[in-house]
């Protein structure tokens, strides 16, 4: 066994180390140095940038490892948790531009998202329930719990970005359904005392992303007017299918399935004005969700080797 000191890293090694960030931290700690050694041993002399094939393989290998490691524990509980985490974050993104006018309800939505992500389901329940009722009441013009009535204009900064008044473009059934799904999911996880792993604080980064992709802030009300949102949905569903395929695990497909009721309610709510684009949007989401489930089924029948 040789134990000579390691040479100083060159540009190629530094670049490979950055690419290894695609792998989970624990995997890097266990096998990162071994991968670096093999990468450098197989590299052409005097090369300073990784070949494209190696870069793609490292990215795919890292994502695959993350998917396999994430596919631990009961799939159904993790799927419910993933779905309600995503929905509660989307709910925050929907209400945040109006925080100046409805600070209590926006705050409750934030509280719900944090409680859900950190697995405090009993705390999330009342907050999600109250927010759900209030969003529905605001949309129906009922001054329940407080006197907030439409119109609720966006705060000055988001209004400058073109954010319209709350629920002025549709609703409230779809947004209320999104809140209700969070309530129901949290109730199931609380009652069954299931303990999926806590979600990262990095989910907070999804809030500005969701506000950004809903360029005209028709969150959960008019997808065809928001191509950014549709692109994000398609991207996430493709990722869900791929992760389910490589890990032979249904949790991502199940989570995608739990998102569909919101989409169905949204279409039903706007059925009178629905365009072919709206139907195509829903059909595409249903197809991709089904494809994600089929990918899992196929992987389970044919172990990946």
């Amino acid at each position, binding site marked *: *066994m*040789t*134990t*000579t*000191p*390691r*040479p100083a890293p060159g540009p190629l090694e530094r670049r490979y180390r950055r690419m290894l960030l695609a792998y989970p931290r624990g995997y890097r700690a266990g*096998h990162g*140095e*071994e*991968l*670096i*050694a*093999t*990468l450098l*041993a*197989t590299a052409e002399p005097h090369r300073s940038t990784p070949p494209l*094939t*190696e870069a*793609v*393989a*490292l*990215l*795919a*290998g*890292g994502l*695959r*490892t993350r998917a*396999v490691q994430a596919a631990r524990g009961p799939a159904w509980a993790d799927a419910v948790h993933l779905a309600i985490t995503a929905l509660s974050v989307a709910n925050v993104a929907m209400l945040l531009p109006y925080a100046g006018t409805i600070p209590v309800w926006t705050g409750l939505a934030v509280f719900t998202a944090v409680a859900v992500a950190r697995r405090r389901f009993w705390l999330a329940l009342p907050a999600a329930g109250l927010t759900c009722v209030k969003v529905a009441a605001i949309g129906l013009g009922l001054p329940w719990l407080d006197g907030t009535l439409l119109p609720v204009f966006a705060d000055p900064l988001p209004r400058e970005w073109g954010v319209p008044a709350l629920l002025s473009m549709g609703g409230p059934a779809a947004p209320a359904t999104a809140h209700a799904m969070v309530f129901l999911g949290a109730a199931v996880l609380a009652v069954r005392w299931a303990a999926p792993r806590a979600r990262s604080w990095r989910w907070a980064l999804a809030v500005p992303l969701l506000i950004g992709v809903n360029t005209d802030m028709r969150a959960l009300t008019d997808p065809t007017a928001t191509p950014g949102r549709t692109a994000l949905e398609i991207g996430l569903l493709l990722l869900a299918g791929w992760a389910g395929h490589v890990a032979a695990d249904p949790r991502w497909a199940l989570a995608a399935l739990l998102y569909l009721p919101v989409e169905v309610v949204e279409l039903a709510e706007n059925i009178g004005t629905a365009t072919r684009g709206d139907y195509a949007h829903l059909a595409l989401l249903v197809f991709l969700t089904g494809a994600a489930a089929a990918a899992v089924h196929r992987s389970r*029948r*044919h*172990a*990946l*080797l």
Partner: protein
Amino acid sequence: MVAGMAKKSLPVSESTYFILAALLDGPLHGHGIIKHVLGMSEGRVKLPVGTLYGALDRLAGGGLIAVEREEVVDGRPRRYFRLTDDGTRLVLTEAERMRQAASVVTGRALPGSAFVPLTSPAAAGLALGRRPVWRPALT
């Protein structure tokens, strides 16, 4: 579980097949496997490192290979992998499957091929769906 995995997984991917075949000669570390596979495939299969270690993880998870030993060379760890009995059985089964599949084609010689000549010129025409225009050399 392993037996079921092996049974369900046939045929394995080409990369996996060559990795298992490389380990038939004894334990190898990652770089050794890449070099061995490149040589065995006559330069055709060049395994990217990310692909190799992903496959090694899956094969180890399925009980088809195992870590023989670990070493530290130039300050960096290195694992040597070996075939398990299940892995040996799988690669031999796969080789036999491919041999049988190949024999369907190699058993009949086609025009311009280097395979063993067929028994009758008519068979060549049958294989090509037309009248035979080629005759095997008699010498």
